[in-house]
């Protein structure tokens, strides 16, 4: 792919949004391949340079589907000083945090040690990413908060990393991805939930990841578009698994956030789960309450990419079911499917709901209110 990088236009500055918002899905990037080295033991430098990364997928590097935009990001988000989109704090401030009045930005780093087969390497990279988030981002801009990135397939070690970071105010959540070796409710991931609950931190499940499985339950699709809509399918499986394995029963204070999965499917999944549970609950006696109750009480949803039905009232009906207090605004900056905060909500939303949607719900969930 050829990328033309041109002079930034000298333009009238954009309208500064008056309303403060929370952005619950920002993707900071590394400017160079060696940026993590200060926090990585030397043996990993040479390992990365000679052996490289091996994710839970076939022998290929990179994502399984081409992203249609360079680095899956906005073409106007290249920092003027160079480096990929999302790699410069100062440019993120200029282009996004300041003009959009982002009062709280939650960092969800991707392309970390998550989903790697070499668990030792995964652990080292995740820990380095966590240190990097503090050093390069949250310690320099107090609006930004970090996620504890963990080696998802190594439960006990992941739990140890969470415990190490617990109480550190730089971090507001634990981050998992939606594609793993097994459905997320299963036992191998329980140590992560245990540690997160202990630390009083919600667990965010973000789209993508490498699980070594076809990305849909019907096999490998052909098109990137199918991957994009497939995030909903993937997170439906994750959520069903979490409910039916009894994770919400076992960890009664655990909260989860579905990030970038859409939310239009939430009511229909909950209705279906309830119906089947009514009839088959003898298979899962550890699930003591209707699935929809766990979903309503313990799950939050980030808004991006916002569903966009032709009849906007359908969207509002949907949100009524989920609960206006459950939605967390997100832009996914700097990715190309970015949602602009001034454009996403239709008219006719009450001030209270609007305030919660854009900021209040996030502050409350993350304990920053």
């Amino acid at each position: 792919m050829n990328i033309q990088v041109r002079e930034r236009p000298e333009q009238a500055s954009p309208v500064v949004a008056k309303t403060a918002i929370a952005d619950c899905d920002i993707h900071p990037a590394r400017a160079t391949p060696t940026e993590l080295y200060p926090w990585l033991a030397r043996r990993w430098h040479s390992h990365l340079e000679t052996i490289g990364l091996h994710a839970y997928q076939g022998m290929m590097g990179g994502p399984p589907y081409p992203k249609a935009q360079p680095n899956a990001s906005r073409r106007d988000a290249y920092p003027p000083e160079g480096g990929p989109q999302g790699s410069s704090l100062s440019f993120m401030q200029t282009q996004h945090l300041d003009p959009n009045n982002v009062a709280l930005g939650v960092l969800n780093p991707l392309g970390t040690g998550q989903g790697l087969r070499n668990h030792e390497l995964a652990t080292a990279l995740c820990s380095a990413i966590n240190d990097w988030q503090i050093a390069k981002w949250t310690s320099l801009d107090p609006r930004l908060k970090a996620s504890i990135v963990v080696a998802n397939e190594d439960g006990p070690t992941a739990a140890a990393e969470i415990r190490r970071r617990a109480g550190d105010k730089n971090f507001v959540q634990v981050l998992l991805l939606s594609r793993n070796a097994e459905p997320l409710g299963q036992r191998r991931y329980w140590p992560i939930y245990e540690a997160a609950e202990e630390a009083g931190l919600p667990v965010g499940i973000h789209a993508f990841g490498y699980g070594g499985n076809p990305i849909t339950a019907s096999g490998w699709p052909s098109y990137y578009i199918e991957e994009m809509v497939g995030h909903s399918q993937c997170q439906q499986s994750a959520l069903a698994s979490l409910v039916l394995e009894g994770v919400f029963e076992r960890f009664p204070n655990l909260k989860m956030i579905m990030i970038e999965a859409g939310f239009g499917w939430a009511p229909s999944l909950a209705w279906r789960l309830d119906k089947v549970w009514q009839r088959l609950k003898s298979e899962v006696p550890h699930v003591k309450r209707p699935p929809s109750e766990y979903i309503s009480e313990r799950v939050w949803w980030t808004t991006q990419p916002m569903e966009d039905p032709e009849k906007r009232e359908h969207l509002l009906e949907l949100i009524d079911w989920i609960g206006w207090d459950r939605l967390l605004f997100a832009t996914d900056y700097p990715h190309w499917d970015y949602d602009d905060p001034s454009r996403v909500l239709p008219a006719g939303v009450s001030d209270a709901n609007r305030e919660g949607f854009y900021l209040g719900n996030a502050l409350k969930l993350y304990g920053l209110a």
Partner: protein
Amino acid sequence: MTRHVVASVAELPPGSRKFLTIDGRPIAVFNIKGEYLGVLNRCPHQGASLCEGPLIGLAQSHNPGEIEYARQGEIIRCPWHGWGRSR
């Protein structure tokens, strides 16, 4: 209609563009194969800086398995969600 001098011909060769602000409006002027076109630099979708995107063409297919790529360089693609705007 007010006239504004924006550039000399030499400054705007074919395939190039120039960004301006006129009366508070962000505008980009393109030279598309010798024709000069001014575009409001605000995507109607979500307000992105439309004119920072790449100039692309149109993939068309008249028969299964046959694709023609026409109108190269005549369509601006928004750097956010990829909507195309043509001359």
